[in-house]
């Protein structure tokens, strides 16, 4: 299925680090998933939703745990279903409730992660699931990549359709409503997209680092951009660059790929901070 990709990499990037198949898979996965993090991250940062997106990661973790005990199906389907329900629920509660949304998100987030830990540690064999905490990017197989390709197209299409609305809601909900934007539907679609991408990626990047992948490229791009087009372009470039550089570094230094990617993004963030 991916023969064309393997040949392309051998031809374009005939290096030591691209020799093995798992590295080629990982590279393709990174090229598919990092642009999505770059895009979604822009509005996570502009909407001050860093904490919210973090909790979505926690929901995804519980989802994977539930998927695992349900058995029969791959954990990922249970995880996607659960984290979308989780994301919609906290979005609804956040908009309905008048008390601080931070507190509500915190409550849901910690409950979710506790439930996930209880399920996965049941019977005392948590170690076999610890990869969900730190992730393993080199475990990606062809099925994962097929799923990722579908999500890539889907989220890109959604972003073409809803970015204008998400941006307007982030500036002023009243103004958006007066312009005929369905603010609740917009927020739900946006959070579902985050939930989907985060859940699929969490098995490779891990619960601990997933949120920084979403926040760092956009936060760095925000420091150096003047308008929405620059913001998106810079965020996507920084995300892809960090992803590929992190992958290469992790190969040569034999360290966690997710952590390397986040470190590269963090370095870029601090550089842009100086520039600002």
């Amino acid at each position, binding site marked *: 299925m991916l023969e064309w990709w393997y040949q392309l990499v051998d031809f374009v990037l005939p290096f030591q680090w691209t020799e093995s198949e798992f590295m080629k898979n990982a590279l393709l996965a990174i090229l598919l998933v990092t642009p999505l993090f770059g895009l979604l991250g822009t509005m996570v940062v502009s909407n001050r939703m860093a904490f919210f997106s973090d909790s979505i990661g926690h929901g995804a973790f519980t989802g994977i745990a539930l998927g695992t005990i349900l058995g029969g199906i791959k954990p990922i389907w249970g995880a996607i279903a659960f984290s979308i329900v989780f994301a919609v629920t906290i979005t609804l509660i956040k908009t309905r409730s008048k008390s601080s949304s931070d507190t509500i998100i915190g409550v849901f987030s910690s409950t979710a992660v506790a439930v996930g830990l209880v399920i996965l540690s049941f019977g005392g064999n948590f170690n076999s699931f610890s990869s969900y905490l730190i992730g393993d990017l080199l475990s990606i197989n062809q099925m994962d990549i097929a799923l990722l390709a579908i999500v890539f197209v889907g989220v890109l299409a959604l972003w073409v359709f809803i970015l204008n609305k998400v*941006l307007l809601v982030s500036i002023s909900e*009243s*103004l958006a409503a*007066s312009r005929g934007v369905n603010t609740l539907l917009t927020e739900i679609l946006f959070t579902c997209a985050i939930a989907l991408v985060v859940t699929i990626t969490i098995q490779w990047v891990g619960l601990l680092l997933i949120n920084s992948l979403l926040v760092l490229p956009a936060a760095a791009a925000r420091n150096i951009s*003047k308008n*929405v087009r620059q913001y998106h372009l810079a965020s996507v470039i920084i995300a892809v660059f960090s992803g590929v550089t992190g992958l290469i570094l992790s190969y040569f230094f034999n360290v966690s790929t997710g952590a390397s990617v986040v470190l590269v993004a963090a370095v870029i963030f601090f550089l842009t901070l100086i520039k600002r």
Partner: protein
Amino acid sequence: MAKHEHKCDGLCEQHCEGLCCTKIENFGVKFGEHTILEDVSLHIHCGELTAIVGPNGAGKSTLLRAMLGEIKHTGELKYENDEGKKFGASANKNAPLIGYVPQQLSFDVHTPTSVLDLFLVCRTRKPAWLVASKNVRAEATAILARVSAEHLLDRKLGTLSGGELQRVLLALALNPIPDLLLLDEPVSGIDQKGLELFYKTVSEIRKEYDLSIILISHDLALVAEYADRVILLNKTVIKNGTPQEVFSHDESARLFGLSWSRSSSGVPGGASNGATIDASNSNADAPVRKAGE
């Protein structure tokens, strides 16, 4: 289409010479147990600048948001005009096209969103992260020029001053030209000069486009100078009339600590900066702007 029936329930003495009229009938809003607004009925005429004044918590902003349909309410908003469908108006003649300037925005000040981006996301379905439509740019430049803000087109929203942002939002609300313009003035953050420029611009626009304008105001002196009609609101309409009528009303004096009714001329228009406003009343909804604000 029937001409606007002249039934103003004795609230408006002026004749209704405009061809269109917005009627608010028996608006009521409740948040849980709390009644925010009750029994609010108003007629708003084209080409008139109607100012809403009232103390904090009087339900002024809530009234505008109810008119926008953002908040659940009882009662009806009706819009009538003589020509049926006006140019630029929505297909349903009873649903006016409403332009709205919110009291405050909630954006992150470092967000990389330019004034042009704001027009793009409001005016086109094309994704603003991919294309910047030349049409929208031209349109935005033209309408920004109308409010003396064309130089702000490529500035980031977070770098605008309060007055600049207010003019940009006004231009946005005028694009497309609405039937009804709702302006919710910020309580603070705009200097006196910026405020006067804003009132002057709004006043010109009213004449130029024959709009119905409702302005929630905190500056009684400017209201007296520019508004055609003033509505004193405190959960319901307490007084509706010309600035002179409303400001000489006993309830105004009680709510604002106004001493205008006792001032020699009885006409507050000349008294710029609200020199006769008694600032000691803590109930006043920021009618007095401290020097240097």
